[in-house]
C-alpha cells in the first residue's frame, strides 16, 4: 500500500483494521501523523454529534406504545365506556371536586425526584425550561422567582411540567396540568407537606410546599403567569 492509498482509506475510515493498512502506518511516519490527526478529528466529530438529548424526548416509549394499544382496543370497550358514562350522567352523579385520584397522584408524586427538593440557588437552563413548557403547550409570562428545576413528568398518564420554585420554607413543587380541570381550589395534605390544586382555565396547577409554607400567595402568582397555548 502506498501513501496515497493509505490516506484515502484513512480519511474515510480512520479505524480501518486491514493488515496492509496497519503495516503501512507502522512503517510511514508521515502517514502515522496523518492518521493521528484524523483520529483526533473523529473524536471531535463524535463529541459534536453526541449532543445531550432534550429531556422532553426522554419520555418512555410506553407513551407511544400505549397510545397504539389504545387504538387497537376492541370497539366494545368504547361502547361499554359510553354506556357507563350515560348511566352516570342519568343518575345525576356529578363531582365538583377532582377525582380523588388526582390529589393522590399529586401527593404521590412528592416521593419522586427527591433531588429536586434540595434547596438551590441555581436557575434551571432557559432552554430546558422552554422545552419542558413547550412540550406541554404551556407558556409562562411574568416572574415567579427562581426556578431551580424543570422536568416533564407523568401525572395520570399526561405529560405535565414539574417545576420547583423557591418558597419561604424551601423549594415548592409546581405541576402544571392542562388536562386536569377542577372547579374550585382543592387543599392537599401529605406528611410534612401541604398545598393546593387551583383551577386555571380548562386545566389546573398543583402547588405543594413544606408544612407552613404560604401556598396561597404563591398559587396566585403562578396562576397569573401560566397560559395554555393553542
Amino acid at each position, binding site marked *: 500500500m502506498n501513501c496515497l492509498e493509505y490516506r*484515502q*482509506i484513512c*480519511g*474515510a*475510515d480512520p479505524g480501518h483494521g486491514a493488515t496492509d493498512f496497519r503495516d503501512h502506518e507502522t512503517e510511514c511516519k508521515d502517514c502515522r501523523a496523518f492518521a493521528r490527526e*484524523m483520529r483526533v*478529528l*473523529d473524536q*471531535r*466529530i*463524535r*463529541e*459534536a*454529534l*453526541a*449532543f*445531550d*438529548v*432534550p429531556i*422532553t*424526548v*426522554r419520555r*418512555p*416509549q*410506553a407513551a*407511544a*406504545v400505549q*397510545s*397504539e*394499544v389504545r387504538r387497537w382496543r376492541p370497539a366494545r370497550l368504547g361502547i361499554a365506556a359510553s354506556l357507563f358514562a350515560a348511566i352516570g350522567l342519568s343518575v345525576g352523579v356529578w363531582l365538583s371536586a377532582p377525582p380523588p385520584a388526582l390529589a393522590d397522584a399529586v401527593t404521590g408524586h412528592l416521593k419522586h425526584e427527591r433531588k429536586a427538593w434540595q434547596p438551590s440557588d441555581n436557575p434551571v437552563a432557559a*432552554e430546558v425550561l422552554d422545552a419542558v413548557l413547550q412540550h406541554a403547550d404551556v407558556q409562562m409570562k411574568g416572574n415567579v422567582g427562581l426556578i431551580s428545576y424543570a422536568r416533564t413528568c407523568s401525572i395520570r398518564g399526561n405529560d405535565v411540567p414539574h417545576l420547583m420554585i423557591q418558597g419561604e420554607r424551601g423549594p415548592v413543587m409546581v405541576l402544571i396540568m392542562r388536562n386536569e380541570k377542577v372547579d374550585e381550589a382543592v387543599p392537599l395534605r401529605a406528611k410534612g407537606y401541604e398545598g393546593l390544586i387551583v383551577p386555571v382555565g380548562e386545566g389546573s396547577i398543583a402547588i405543594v410546599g413544606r408544612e407552613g409554607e404560604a401556598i396561597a400567595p404563591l398559587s396566585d402568582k403562578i396562576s397569573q403567569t401560566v397560559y395554555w397555548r393553542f
Partner: protein
Amino acid sequence: MNKTENELARRRRFEALTRAHRDDLYRYAFWLARDHAIADDAVQECLLRAWKAFESLEDESRAKPWLMTILRREHARLYERKRPDMVAMQDLSQRENAILGSQPDTDIDDLRVAILQLDDSYREPLVLQVLMGFSTEQIAEHMGIKQNAVLTRLFRARKQLKSALESGHPDDDEGGAA
C-alpha cells in the same frame, strides 16, 4: 399466561430493548432532519412502527440497525409530508445549536455548524459511522449504496469538516455525492 399478560410481557420486552437505543435514535433523527420537531415525530413514528412489527425482529441483538432502518424510512415519509420551510443556513445553525446546547468548547460549536452545513448525503454516513459505530459495509447496506460510494462520501465529509475547522467555513469545492 393469558392474553393480557402476554401483551404486557411483550410490551416490557419491547421497552427494555428500545430504551437503550432511544438517545441514539433521536440523535440520528436530528442529524437527518436538522429539525427538532421532525426528529421528535420521526422517533415516535419509528417506535410505533417498531412496536407493530416487533414480532418480525428475529434476532434481538440486531435491534439497533433494525430500529435505524425503520427510523430512516419514517423520516423520509415525514419529510415528504412536512417539508420544513426553507431557512437560511445561518439561522438554522443558530436555531438548532440552541437546541443542541452551547458548549464551553467553541470548536465543538463550530463543528456542529459545519456538520449541519454538510450535504445530507455526506452527513448521514458520517453519523452512522462515527456515532453509531456502523462499519462501511453496514452503512452501504443501510443506505442502499455501494461501499465505495460510502468511502468516498466519508472521505469528503471529513475533508470538508477539517477545512471548516481550519478556515472557519466549509470547503465547498468538493461538493457532490459519490
